[in-house]
């Protein structure tokens, strides 16, 4: 039972991370920096609780806000850059963050930051955040900014010519995405009780991409599904655990070949809705 709970909690944290990648992704910004923002949130909140005695919730929020601010900072040069070059820029940022923390003695440098106060019922907090995010994304879907984000992701130039301020929209998506990643980091830190820079490397950032791409890119349920399933399955099949990363790689390729929109698509949602209608 305890084991199931811990797995569910980790899955919850990864759902938050997947959603943090998804938001800028809607606007066409592929970010490998989310692991870096997670680190900022993790360290930021850990310093608050472990060193300054600030309670959990404000500390996690603080971590998120700092991540969001840095997201804004990174988001500005990111505006001009597309596709793989944005990938590289965000990758570089993530690496810089990691290097900074490796050399940052106040938070333990390469040896890591132990002694973070464990937060009981972390899982509850994680899923509370997910609940809030679900509300956020579903409201976003049928809103002015939501349509603007999708439009920018489809055809940025056309969106701009139709009156969308793409600069502010992209920045918004990027910084809020970083904020969400920071929150995820904060929750993560107070569950692990110990963090070190290696936990926030590039390969983890890539994992979040895999969750989203596999889960589905057309609607926010996709990343939730992807993160949940891909975190849970390795736990239950030890064989998968060892080859987890390779399987992720294969999944990415296979999805691109057979179903690029991911497992959960608009058609999936429509089919589910039809099922509910029939059940009435």
């Amino acid at each position: 039972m305890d084991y199931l709970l811990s797995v569910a909690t980790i899955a919850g944290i990864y759902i938050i991370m997947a959603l943090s990648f998804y938001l800028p992704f809607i606007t066409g910004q592929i970010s490998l920096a989310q692991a870096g923002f997670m680190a900022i949130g993790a360290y930021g909140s850990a310093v608050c609780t472990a060193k300054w005695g600030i309670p959990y919730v404000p500390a996690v929020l603080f971590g998120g806000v700092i991540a969001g601010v840095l997201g804004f900072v990174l988001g500005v040069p990111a505006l001009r850059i597309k596709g793989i070059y944005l990938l590289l820029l965000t990758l570089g940022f993530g690496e810089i963050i990691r290097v900074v923390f490796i050399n940052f003695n106040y938070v333990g440098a390469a040896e890591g930051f132990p002694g973070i106060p464990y937060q009981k019922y972390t899982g509850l907090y994680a899923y509370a955040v997910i609940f809030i995010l679900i509300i956020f994304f579903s409201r976003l879907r049928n809103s002015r900014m939501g349509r603007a984000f999708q439009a920018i992701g489809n055809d940025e130039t056309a969106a701009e010519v139709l009156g969308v301020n793409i600069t502010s929209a992209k920045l918004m998506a990027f910084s809020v995405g970083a904020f969400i990643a920071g929150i995820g980091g904060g929750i993560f830190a107070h569950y692990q009780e110990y963090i070190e820079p290696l936990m926030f490397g590039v390969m983890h950032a890539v994992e979040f991409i895999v969750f989203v791409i596999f889960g589905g890119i057309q609607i926010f349920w996709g990343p939730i599904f992807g993160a949940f399933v891909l975190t849970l399955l390795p736990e239950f099949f030890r064989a998968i655990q060892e080859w987890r990363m390779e399987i992720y790689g294969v999944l990415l390729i296979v999805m691109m070949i057979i179903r690029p929109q991911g497992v959960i698509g608009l058609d999936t949602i429509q089919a589910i809705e039809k099922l509910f209608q029939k059940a009435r």
Partner: protein
Amino acid sequence: MLLQQLINGLMLGSTYSLVAIGYTLIFGVLRLLHFAHGEVLMAGSFMGLYIILWTGLPLYITLPLAMIATGALGLIVEFLAIRPLRKDFHLAPLLSTIGVTIILQNLAVKIFGGYGTKFPEAIKTADFRIGPFLISSAKILIVVISLFLMVVLFFIIAKTKVGRAMRAVSESHVTAGFLGVNVDRVVLVTFGIASALAGAAGVMVGISFHAVTPFIGLTFALKGLVVMLLGGLGNVVGAMIGGLILGLAEVASIVILPTEINLQDIFSFGIMILILIFKPTGLFGSRVTEG
């Protein structure tokens, strides 16, 4: 001292050039930025390493063998991960190559371990004395081999039927198809050539750094992409020159600013940002227009 650093810069730069040429060739025919190209270089390093370890063959046999092996790897990657993709999702190739990167890097860690492996002495390094300077023959050899490969490549592209086909496909798949070019095969061949070049670069990286780890893929991926951007997308000559420029610049930065932190990598990021902001078509102009 200056001459030594110059040789260092040229040596580093020529490996960058070889990688960047591969990127630019693939971008030319597929408008794809092949994220996994750096991992192909890494594979080349290890293949060269193990060929020498197991057979003790000299470099002039090992290098072509490694190139063939890496070229074959490139063909497999194209066939399995690029060719079957749907054409309608423009992010599909990029994401697929990220998948390839994950697979190759993690496989390498499983097979070769996460720590560096020492690259055996593959060439007798005789050190030359020119005046008061000590120059390693290994380094000069690398520069010479790289330049040779680049010249051969240039010849292939400019003068042979295959090269013409590659240039046609770079212009337009549709038009090339109408002209009777087997576009799929040209893409395959391009991948093979690009990967073989990366393999050569990989072997030379092994020789010059004396060690190989599974993680050099990402580093060279970044450097190669920056060089490609520097030289202009699709511009092979630009990639050649751009690589040398970056190599020399990095060596210069090590000499001028001594720090423990790896400023070189951040250096390339900095250059990338500058180019993207001020001269997105590269120093020498891109030969293709982006989608």
